[in-house]
């Protein structure tokens, strides 16, 4: 361990270093810093490697005092992960080796016992032979199971008891009793002169094998984070002094200009300066269709550039990128607890001492009222209860499922904030959905234009007029004109009349655009247009009248279109047993039209932002569990009030920080995915808890000998050891089944 401490290295990137003289100066300065074992400068790549436990800031100060500058090179998360995996592999091999050695001793001994039935010490020769076997088994206990004993001792000193305590007590008792038989057989009745060396070796071997398999299975539970980490590129093509350089990702700074070619991953978050391309964001958002990106659009690290070359400016690097935040959030959520685990937590905390008491009580019962050989039975019962009762399966039951469930969510663009949110999403009664941007696309579009003459001519006039307006409906009209490549004229005498519409002059013509009130105010006869307008309004459109030089020329209708996938998502959510209610600030006519189209149960229209929170609270007062879906910022109070707040489609920093569950794509399918995932995870947790509880509640009485009157046999400590090894492996493997989870959404 001391060597490992000394081999701790900190790497610094130097600046201003260009000669051998600089190297000596820096090395000499850093050597003076407390804790530095060795300091070496590499002139070629301008790095400084410091060995020893040091304060990096002190080293940086020392370099600065020598007239240069230095920065700590952070090993990337991926490198750290790889180191960890290598450690895991080493640990796995070590456990396998220990297991092989222990079983190599234990299995032949057990076979010998089964074939010959000569496991007793009755003569001096027996004493010598079994004494040697005892010493060999002691070597197994020390070299293969020494960590159980040191762990048990440490825990004991801390007034706590762990799995190590049970294993050490179980195997230690078996070995000590056997050694007692070897050394002083005459003190024991003949029937109790049985040795159990094979049991201690086999238990150590089997438990080590179980742990080895568990290490391997556990590695898979964090596969989701591995996948996310793999999205991070290791280098980036940066434009420096007019040249394109491939630099390690750690050296990219905000403001750098970067080039990304077709087929390459976007290395950091940024904004496109030049070029256009399709970018596959599915790995981050779960959105299957690639998104077109051009100048001004934002790019996220980890997404894949498909077909064009893009020049972009880095805006967020390192741990500030959205991908890095997601990884951090997933890792944090993976380690959180679910409320359902509370009982298991409480039991685990007091379980080991209780089991120790049960083991002693059972042993005393066997000694006092059991059949002969009582001493041998007492030992078998004591050892078996201690070994089989290990609560590790109970302790693993929930964290393993949460780990896989949260990771699986991230793969599907569902970022769960913690285990509590994951659990609560599984039994929601009502889903309250914000209309704009969730059920609809959030940006109004021109849907209908109805006129007696040339519709393009009317649109050109109206769009020219609306150029001066900042109203969202105006934007829809202007962009529709742009799409049709109509030439717009600048308006003069432009006037916006509040709650009525706009008026102005275009190429000498007086143009009006607005509602019925505007037409009445300007004394323009409506004719049959009012009936035609009503029909469109019933379909949920916002209708405006257009008049030119005092004559009504036509009507124009704008609507926020319903998202393509909203209908399918609502159907899925209803199948999951949720009642859907819609919240919107829009007028009730268009809200009702959308609700009717999507088969939504209830509509709350014409709401102010604060009304949304009130409605959620009212529903909760009725005893219902409410999920709220919104865009994460203006719906924040309602999202916070709901039992589970789903921030949809945002994926912004604010949403990631504040929502219970953040959905990386702008689709209600994400909510359905989250609910399905939550239910699958909770089902998995319940299976694990059931298995672990059953295992312990059945295992202890069986080990204590409750079946003896029926079967005439006691549970062998070896079987108890195997069962214990299998129990945690079963829990971890069952949790890994969650990796097969697939949402029911069909693309």
């Amino acid at each position, binding site marked *: 361990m001391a060597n490992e401490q000394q081999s701790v290295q900190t790497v610094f990137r130097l600046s201003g270093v260009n000669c051998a003289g600089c190297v000596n100066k820096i090395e000499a300065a850093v050597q003076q810093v407390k804790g530095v074992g060795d300091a070496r400068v590499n002139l070629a790549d301008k790095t400084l490697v410091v060995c020893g436990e040091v304060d990096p800031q002190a080293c940086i100060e020392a370099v600065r005092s020598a007239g240069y500058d230095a920065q700590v090179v952070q090993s990337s998360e991926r490198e750290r992960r790889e180191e960890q995996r290598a450690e895991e592999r080493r640990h796995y091999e070590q456990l396998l080796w220990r297991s092989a050695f222990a079983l190599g001793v234990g299995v032949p001994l057990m076979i010998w016992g089964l074939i010959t039935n000569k496991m007793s010490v009755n003569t001096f020769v027996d004493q010598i032979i079994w004494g040697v076997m005892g010493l060999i088994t002691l070597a197994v206990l020390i070299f293969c199971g020494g960590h159980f004993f040191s*762990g048990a001792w*440490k825990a004991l000193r801390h007034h706590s008891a762990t799995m190590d305590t049970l294993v050490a007590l179980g195997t230690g008792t078996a070995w000590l009793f056997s050694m007692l038989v070897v050394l002083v057989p005459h003190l024991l009745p003949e029937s109790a002169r049985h040795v159990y060396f094979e049991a201690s070796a086999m238990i150590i071997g089997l438990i080590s094998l179980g742990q080895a398999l568990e290490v391997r299975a*556990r590695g898979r539970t964090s596969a989701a984070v591995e996948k996310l980490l793999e999205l991070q590129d290791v280098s980036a093509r940066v434009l420096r002094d007019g040249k394109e350089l491939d630099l390690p990702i750690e050296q990219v700074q905000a403001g750098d200009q970067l080039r990304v070619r077709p087929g390459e991953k976007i290395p950091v978050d940024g904004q496109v300066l030049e070029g256009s391309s399709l970018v596959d964001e599915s790995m981050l958002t779960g959105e299957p269709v690639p998104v077109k990106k051009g100048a001004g659009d934002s790019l996220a690290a980890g997404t894949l550039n498909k077909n064009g070359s893009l020049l972009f400016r880095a805006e967020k690097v390192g741990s500030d990128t959205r991908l890095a935040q997601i990884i951090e959030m997933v890792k944090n959520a993976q380690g959180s607890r679910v409320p359902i685990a509370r009982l298991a937590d409480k039991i685990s*905390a007091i379980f080991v001492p209780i089991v120790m*008491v049960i083991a002693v*009580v059972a*042993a005393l019962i066997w*000694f006092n009222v059991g059949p002969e050989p009582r001493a041998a039975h007492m030992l078998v019962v004591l050892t078996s209860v201690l070994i089989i009762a290990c609560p590790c399966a109970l302790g*693993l039951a929930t964290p393993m499922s949460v780990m896989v469930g949260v990771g699986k969510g991230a793969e599907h663009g569902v970022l769960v904030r913690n285990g509590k949110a994951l659990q609560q999403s599984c039994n929601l009664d009502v889903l309250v959905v914000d209309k704009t941007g969730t059920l609809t696309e959030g940006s109004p579009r021109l849907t209908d234009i109805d006129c007696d003459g040339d519709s393009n001519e009317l649109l050109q006039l109206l769009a020219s007029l609306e150029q001066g307006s900042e109203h969202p409906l105006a934007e829809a009209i202007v962009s529709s004109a742009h799409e049709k490549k109509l030439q717009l004229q600048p308006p003069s005498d432009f006037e916006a009349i509040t709650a009525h519409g706009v008026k102005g002059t275009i190429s000498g013509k007086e143009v009006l655009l607005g509602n019925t009130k505007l037409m009445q105010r300007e004394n323009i006869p409506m004719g049959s247009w009012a009936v035609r307008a009503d029909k469109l309004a019933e379909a949920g459109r916002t209708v405006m009248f257009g008049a030119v030089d005092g004559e009504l020329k036509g009507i124009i209708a704008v609507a926020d279109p319903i998202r393509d996938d909203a209908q399918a998502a609502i159907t899925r959510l209803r199948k999951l047993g949720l009642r859907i209610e819609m919240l919107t600030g829009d007028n009730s006519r268009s809200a009702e039209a959308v609700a009717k189209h999507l088969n939504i149960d209830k509509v709350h229209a014409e709401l102010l932002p604060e009304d949304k929170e009130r409605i959620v609270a009212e529903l909760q007062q009725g005893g219902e569990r409410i999920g709220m879906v919104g865009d994460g910022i203006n719906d924040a109070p309602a999202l916070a009030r709901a039992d589970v707040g789903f921030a949809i489609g945002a994926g912004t920093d604010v949403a990631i920080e504040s929502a219970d569950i953040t959905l990386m794509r702008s689709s209600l399918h994400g909510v359905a995915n989250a609910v399905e995932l939550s239910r699958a995870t909770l089902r998995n947790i319940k299976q694990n808890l059931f298995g672990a509880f059953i295992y312990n509640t059945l295992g202890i009485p069986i080990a204590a000998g409750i079946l003896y009157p029926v079967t005439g046999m006691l549970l062998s400590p070896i079987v108890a050891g195997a069962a214990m090894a299998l129990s945690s492996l079963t829990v971890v493997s069952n949790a890994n089944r969650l990796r097969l989870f697939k949402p029911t959404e069909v693309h």
Partner: protein
Amino acid sequence: MDVVLVNIVGVLLIIAIIWWFWLGPKHSAVKVVSAVDKLQILVKDGVYEPDHIRLPAGRAATLHFHREDPNPCSEWVLFPDLEVSAELALHKDTPVNLPAAKPGEYPFTCQMQMYRGTLVLE
């Protein structure tokens, strides 16, 4: 005689277990770290050392966990009441940032609840 002896030993063992794990004084094995020290916690052999940490309440703090135990149980440390968890690197310091919190006792454990410690904010 044997029977009496074994029973006495058994009963004494039960009393010892109950006293040691639940009733007995526990501060003997407890270290207290003040806020001015670098709060390093060694994760080794199934325990956190020190396993009791005293810090002033209402202030954010950073604990440095140094994990020497390859056992996968020790891979995560959880502060459930503070909603903080961290994956601990092996043979390295992992800083764990804790938010400012009210005075009280906040247990921290590994995923399997085998490694246990208490953070006391006062």
